[in-house]
């Protein structure tokens, strides 16, 4: 017999009676119909259906045997009621979604879990993964248990971690639990500018890349140049890796960027102060920038000859410049102490400057990126007025002829005050009255009229400007008694070939001034000057003349006062045509009919032959003139030489001697070394001048020379010598109005 008791004695809740019966006939009785005893099972057991709380208790099974001791077995039945599903709250209230957040990295996670129901009272615990992180819960006394966790400093590793709240009151079944997945905003870990060129070239485009790792959501990347944000030329390429944010800056570095810091900042805007940055010092290569400056203590417009001057060349360049050059008027200036030019560091030092030092200066600097030229500085060197060398000269004037003497000074500043002096003895110096001359700028004009023999002498023109008085550089003018030259004489033609000839004359008196000679070949028919040549000596060589044209050859002398009467040779033709050597002295010859010409030609030919024989005979009696044909242009001796096709000027240096003019003593040293370009000038007696010239010149203004220094205002005149003391002057640079006119 089996009796089941619950908790206490009294009536059994179930009985199973097989006394005197087979198990199949067992008598059973139960307190409730939820109870079933399964006696055939091993072990036999009591089933309770639809368990209720009141079913809990100690169950005793008493088995009575007929002959064996009774057995009592006790079983404690505990009824477990599972708790309800836990509910999670975060700081924003109840969490209904699987995900919570996003929370900022480093912040504290505060979660509260609540659960109701459950028997026995459940344990309400928090789990992070497999680890219990909080087992402290408390009974709110209203049937609800709560467990609040403050999880400090959420870290990167907690992204997507699961926080599970579990309400457990039995190990018989899985406890109800609720989980949340944490979403986080993560700070950037590191920002890197990946472009690592050691230098950048100015004005070239570079794609600078910057990456920020670890930000969630993706970082906002900003670029900065020093403290200035760059907002243009940015590209944000897509990134495969959500962890990485990229930004590309299309940088065109400028020279000014050199040395600046390029900064890339990755920022998670959701997390204040989460900036991670990287910076790169920009090393921008560029050609030098050069700036030339006059020395600090120098006043640009107050530099005089003799001063020391220096320039400073300021170079900014990257890489540093390896070379610096200096230029004056485009030509390089080098260190040269003998020329008092010193280059030191970034300076060009010019010691004791002269007017030739003036001009445009510049410097240049060179580095690997190229060479650059500086600004151009104009160096002005002030200097006292000095005579421009080409204004010195010999001026011929007849008595009572007024000549304009022009004195041209070089001076800086060019505002020059002039005064003139006169000296005819070498002893006395007379100042010319201010009223006699005028001046403007660097030029002064004196109208001078020699009245007596005493008025011939040396005029000196002096200049004074702000810098001072040009004591070393007056302009000297020799006023000599002079007129137009005499015409050349005895011009003869020789070596007359089919298309060439030579012509030589004897030079006449030079009029007191240096003279030269001009040959003009005139096409008699066309009345056109075919050829024009000039020479120091009255001998010419003509070649390449066209045939069958009748030419007139005229030769005349020219000096500063004008030209002489011409010596003419008419009717000259080439190729088989008879030559005329008649002296016509300027009269024009009428062309006759052809027959007359032919007849004339015979006559002329005969005459010519006779004359030629005589001339040859005469010449051979004298010293035979060596004729040097110059088949190239002689720039030294025939500056004004003009040709048609191939005109040649024959220079016969010795013809002066041949002619044997007693008034002219040629200066041998002129051409044979010594002071080149200077000849000795001898005064020619005025009596030998032709009266016609004198009359013409006398029509000019009369100039009275006044001695400013003497009280009576009279000029002292020297009557002793017709021949003046020889004065060295430049024969090549005679400038006077008359001379100029003669050349036009």
């Amino acid at each position: 017999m089996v009796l089941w008791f619950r908790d206490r004695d009294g009536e059994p809740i179930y009985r199973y009676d097989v006394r005197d019966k087979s198990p199949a006939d067992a008598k059973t009785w139960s307190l409730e119909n939820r109870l079933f005893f399964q006696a055939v099972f091993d072990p036999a057991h009591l089933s309770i259906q639809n368990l209720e709380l009141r079913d809990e208790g100690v169950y005793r099974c008493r088995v009575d045997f007929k002959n064996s001791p009774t057995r009592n077995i006790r079983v404690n039945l505990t009824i477990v009621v599972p708790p309800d599903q836990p509910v999670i709250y975060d700081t924003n209230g109840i969490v209904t979604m699987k995900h919570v957040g996003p929370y900022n990295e480093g912040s504290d996670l505060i979660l509260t879990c609540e659960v109701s129901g459950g028997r026995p009272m459940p344990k309400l615990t928090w789990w992070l993964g497999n680890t219990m992180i909080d087992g402290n819960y408390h009974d709110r006394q209203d049937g609800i248990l709560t467990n609040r966790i403050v999880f400090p400093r959420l870290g990167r590793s907690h992204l997507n971690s699961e926080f599970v709240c579990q309400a457990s009151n039995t190990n018989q079944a899985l406890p109800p639990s609720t989980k949340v997945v944490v979403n986080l905003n993560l700070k950037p870990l590191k920002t890197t500018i990946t472009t690592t060129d050691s230098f950048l070239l100015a004005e070239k485009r570079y794609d600078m890349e910057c990456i920020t790792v670890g930000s969630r959501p993706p970082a906002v990347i900003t670029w900065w140049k020093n403290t200035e944000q760059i907002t243009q030329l940015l590209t944000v390429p897509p990134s495969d890796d959500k962890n990485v944010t990229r930004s590309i800056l299309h940088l065109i570095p400028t020279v000014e960027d050199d040395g600046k810091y390029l900064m890339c900042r990755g920022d998670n805007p959701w997390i204040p102060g989460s900036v991670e940055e990287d910076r790169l010092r920009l090393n921008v290569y560029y050609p030098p920038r050069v700036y030339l400056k006059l020395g600090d203590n120098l006043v640009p417009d107050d530099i005089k000859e003799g001063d020391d001057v220096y320039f400073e060349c300021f170079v900014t360049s990257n890489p540093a410049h390896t070379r610096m050059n200096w230029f004056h008027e485009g030509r390089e200036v080098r260190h040269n102490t003998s020329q008092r030019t010193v280059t030191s560091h970034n300076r060009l030092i010019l010691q004791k400057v002269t007017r030739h030092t003036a001009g445009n200066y510049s410097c240049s600097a060179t580095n690997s990126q190229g060479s650059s030229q500086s600004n151009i500085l104009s160096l002005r060197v002030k200097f006292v007025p000095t005579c421009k060398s080409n204004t010195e000269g010999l001026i011929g004037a007849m008595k009572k002829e007024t000549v304009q003497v022009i004195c041209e000074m070089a001076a800086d500043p060019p505002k020059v005050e002039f005064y003139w002096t006169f000296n005819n003895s070498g002893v006395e110096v007379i100042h010319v009255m201010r009223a006699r001359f005028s001046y403007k700028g660097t030029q002064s004009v004196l109208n001078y009229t020699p009245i007596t023999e005493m008025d011939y002498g040396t005029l000196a023109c002096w200049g004074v400007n702000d810098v001072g008085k040009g004591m070393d550089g007056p302009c000297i003018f020799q006023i000599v008694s002079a007129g137009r030259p005499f015409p050349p004489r005895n011009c003869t033609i020789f070596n007359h070939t089919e298309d060439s000839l030579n012509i030589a004359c004897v030079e006449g008196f030079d009029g007191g001034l240096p003279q030269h000679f001009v040959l003009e070949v005139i096409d008699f028919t066309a009345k056109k000057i075919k050829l024009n040549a000039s020479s120091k000596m009255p001998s010419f060589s003509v070649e390449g003349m066209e045939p069958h044209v009748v030419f007139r050859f005229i030769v005349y002398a020219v000096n500063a006062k004008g030209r002489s009467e011409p010596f003419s040779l008419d009717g000259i033709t080439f190729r088989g045509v008879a030559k005329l050597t008649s002296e016509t002295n300027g009269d024009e010859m009428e062309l006759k009919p052809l027959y007359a010409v032919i007849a004339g030609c015979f006559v002329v030919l005969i005459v010519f032959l006779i004359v030629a024989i005589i001339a040859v005979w005469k010449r051979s009696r004298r010293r035979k003139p060596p004729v040097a044909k110059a088949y190239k242009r002689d720039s030294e001796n025939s500056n004004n030489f003009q040709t048609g096709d191939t005109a040649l000027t024959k220079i016969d240096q010795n013809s002066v001697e041949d002619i044997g003019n007693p008034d002219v003593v040629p200066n041998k040293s002129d051409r044979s070394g010594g002071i080149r370009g200077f000849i000795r000038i001898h005064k020619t007696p005025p009596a030998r001048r032709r009266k016609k010239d004198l009359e013409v010149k006398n029509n000019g203004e009369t100039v009275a020379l006044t001695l400013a220094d003497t009280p009576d205002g009279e000029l002292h005149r020297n009557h002793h010598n017709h021949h003046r003391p020889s004065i060295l002057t430049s024969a090549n640079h005679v400038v006077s109005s008359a001379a100029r006119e003669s050349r036009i």
Partner: protein
Amino acid sequence: MFQEKVVFFWVLLANWVLVIGIKLESVFIPQYAVKDATVTLRCDFDVESDKLMSLKWYKDDHEFFRYSMHHGIRMQTFSVEGVIVDTAQSTLNSVILKNVTLKTSGTYKCEVSADVPSFRTLSKQGDIIVIAPPKSNPRIVGFHSVVSLGDTLRGNCTCDRSRPAASLMFYINDEKADFGDLIEYLPISEQDGLETSVLGLRFQVEPKHFRSGNLELKCTATIGNGYWVTNMMVSQASFNAQPSFPGHNRLLAGSGSGHKAGDVGTWGTSLLATVIITLLGYF
């Protein structure tokens, strides 16, 4: 409030229902039993309207005695260690256990069950502790019999071989010794399950301890509600030596006359009788 009243009503109703069925009147289970003695267990019940199915005695949940009424009255005993039922003496209401041993100690339960239809079952239980008394009074050892003022008296009291271990206590001139002067030791377990108790005493002799030159030390051993005593006299050294009474024993619970420690065999029976009387009186 209403619900409480309803519950109370049902409790009353249940009691009334019980009253009409089998009822356990009283169950007697002695708390102490002296080793080798005989123990009588009583179970009185009233079947009332029920029909008795069985009466069972359990020791520690093991059935050792059954009186079943199915198919006639039938008494059965079952073998349980430490339990020897005197079947000749035992009846429906009383079970006699003879020659109790230390293993007889345990929880005894009487369970009565009615037969069809209620099968109502009731039980009551109680614990029996079997006592093995010491064969002698406690021994006082180690104390000097003559001391001077200021001396330290020290010694032990030992109660040999009892079950359970005796509780010992020192008295000085009939006053309990200060707790701080006592030295406690764990009981010494013997091989046959008996235990020996030892208690130490150590104190400085002061004038207040002496009455006309003598100091009385007393050690008591207590097991359950029986106890055993031994006295000892200690003399003050400055007094003329007086004859002491070494080994003077006295059983306070007994006749009051002292006995020599060695006379266990002589006094064993009377001691046992005294203890049993005392134990019975307790219940």
